């Protein structure tokens, strides 16, 4: 029996720390384990005893790449507990903030992390030597996302302008209008990006995913919607814990997740969002998807780079639509009185759906909190991908095999991976 163990001790350039181990037996992948070994940060415990008003700023610190998702889930869950519904321009501003985060995150991933895999470079900086114009274009689009974050959120990472009930300060109409021209330019560039990535040479594969995402009747989901799956699930966010379960595995300090009724892993993120919501994309994004020959349900995870490009087009298009109709609200937030209650919310981070639940005391103090991020939900499915997809590459030389393993993880942009190229590779041939 030939035995090889591919062991990656530490994933460099990560938001968090993780490792990867793949065991090969007689040319087949026998097991794949994505481990997360950073110390638990106890954010859920940190919330206890704090005022409900503090939750958005605390939650934002969970991630430096997708803080808006954590803030938005926190404020929506709090508002659910407190019986408040934010509508009109304030709701639009929240969608606009989400546009900023998607543009930033997707363009960073597409250009600096994922694209080098397809063009044969070790990372974005190496790729920039030969493809400077492409990298400049990606960074220019990303910069507009940063500008939205700064204008609406107060700064480009860890926004400080978000509060339960709305914002601390609503942006001026003229400031948003000033962004429109740059958004138009970025939209043209994003269309070029979609055409470009659609021409890559993708591994030929298909996976039988169970997709899970939010679904809103008439808009591509950011902040609101029911939780739906490709197998017919259709529930309110408050029922998340009835249908989904987090559980501990010994090798990892991060929880895994599965669907309770079938004990099965599932996938959240761009592929799931697109598969379940392509019909409510903007006409321009739909046209770009057609031009990129993106099927209505994409089950090839390597083609997720195209989906991210399409979602970026949508986010830019949506941002322009929101800015065009924006009227400054009379107040930047709704006044909220504390009360006892339990609130739930699910929103769509760039990497996938995340869920928050808070229980509040009568004075608005947080009694307990549950936060389920996309990475823990996707962890089991990423391991399944490694088992099922990298088997086709085991004949490759070690550096190419490592590359395929990394790329297979990067397809899903887990918060612990990010990475241009993780790593030290050890192979035990048994």
């Amino acid at each position, binding site marked *: 029996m030939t035995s090889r163990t591919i062991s990656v001790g530490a994933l460099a350039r990560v938001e968090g*720390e993780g490792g990867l181990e793949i065991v090969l037996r007689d040319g087949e992948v026998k097991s794949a384990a994505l481990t997360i070994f950073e110390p638990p940060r106890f954010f859920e415990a940190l919330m206890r005893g704090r005022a409900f008003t503090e939750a958005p700023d605390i939650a934002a610190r969970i991630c430096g790449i997708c803080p808006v998702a954590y803030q938005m889930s926190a404020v929506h869950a709090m508002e659910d507990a407190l019986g408040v519904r934010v509508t009109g321009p304030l709701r639009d501003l929240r969608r606009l903030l989400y546009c900023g985060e998607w543009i930033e995150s997707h363009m960073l991933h597409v250009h600096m992390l994922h694209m080098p895999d397809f063009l044969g470079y070790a990372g974005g900086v190496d790729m920039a*030597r030969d493809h400077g114009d492409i990298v400049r274009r990606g960074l220019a689009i990303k910069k507009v996302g940063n500008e939205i974050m700064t204008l609406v959120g107060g700064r480009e990472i860890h926004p400080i302008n978000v509060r339960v009930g709305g914002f601390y300060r609503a942006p001026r109409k003229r400031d948003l209008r000033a962004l429109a021209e740059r958004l138009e330019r970025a939209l043209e560039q994003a269309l070029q990006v979609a055409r470009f990535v659609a021409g890559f040479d993708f591994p030929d594969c298909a996976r039988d995913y169970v997709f899970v995402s939010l679904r809103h009747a008439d808009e591509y989901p950011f902040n609101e919607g029911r939780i739906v799956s490709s197998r017919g699930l259709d529930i309110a966010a408050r029922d998340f814990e009835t249908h989904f379960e987090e559980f501990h595995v010994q090798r990892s300090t991060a929880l895994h997740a599965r669907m309770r009724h079938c004990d099965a892993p599932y996938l959240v993120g761009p592929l799931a969002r697109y598969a379940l919501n392509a019909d409510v994309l903007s006409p321009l994004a739909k046209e770009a998807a057609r031009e990129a020959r993106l099927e209505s349900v994409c089950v090839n995870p390597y083609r997720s780079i195209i989906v991210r490009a399409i979602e970026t087009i949508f986010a830019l298009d949506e941002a322009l639509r929101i800015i065009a109709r924006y009227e400054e609200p009379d107040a930047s937030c709704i006044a909220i009185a504390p009360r006892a209650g339990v609130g739930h919310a699910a929103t769509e981070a760039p990497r996938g759906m995340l869920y928050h639940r808070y229980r509040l005391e009568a004075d608005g103090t947080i009694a307990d909190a549950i936060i389920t991020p996309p990475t823990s939900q996707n962890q089991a499915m990423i391991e399944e991908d490694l088992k099922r997809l990298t088997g086709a590459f085991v004949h490759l030389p070690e550096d190419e095999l490592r590359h395929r393993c990394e790329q297979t993880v990067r397809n899903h942009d887990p918060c612990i991976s990010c990475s241009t190229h993780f790593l030290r590779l050890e192979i035990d041939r048994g």
Partner: protein
Amino acid sequence: MGRRILLGVGNPDRGDDGAGPCVAALLRESAALDIVECRGEAGAILAALEGAVEAIIVDASLSSAPAGTVRRFDLAAEGAPLSLDCGCSSHGFGLAEAIGLAWTLGTLPPVCVLFTIEGESFAPGAPLSSAAQAGAAAAAARILAELAAKERADGASFFTAG
């Protein structure tokens, strides 16, 4: 005369990671530079450097050097001394990548100097250690001295009036 910038990189809420912003604060009143603080996100760094003819970047470092050690790198002349494989930054896609990209894309300011201040504790919520505080003060003094020497040599003014 083009824009001249001092960029203090880091998170003041994470112990000695706040050394860069500390230097920015120390120089805010005296140096006639565009003083910018930034958490370290690569896109924000690239945007801050855009169009600058001179840049001084200050960030915390973590190596085996004694805490408070100040190092100076001439990025424009020597290239980036930063390892892209270093996973110790809390910034994710951060300063190393921004410098690497700007160097590769030819957008690094023609004069670009990096000062690093060795930290010893990067715990969330911790204050600057006394060693990092001393390092930040030393870096600020060194930057002021360099600006004064440059002013004497070039006649350009790097200091605010009074």
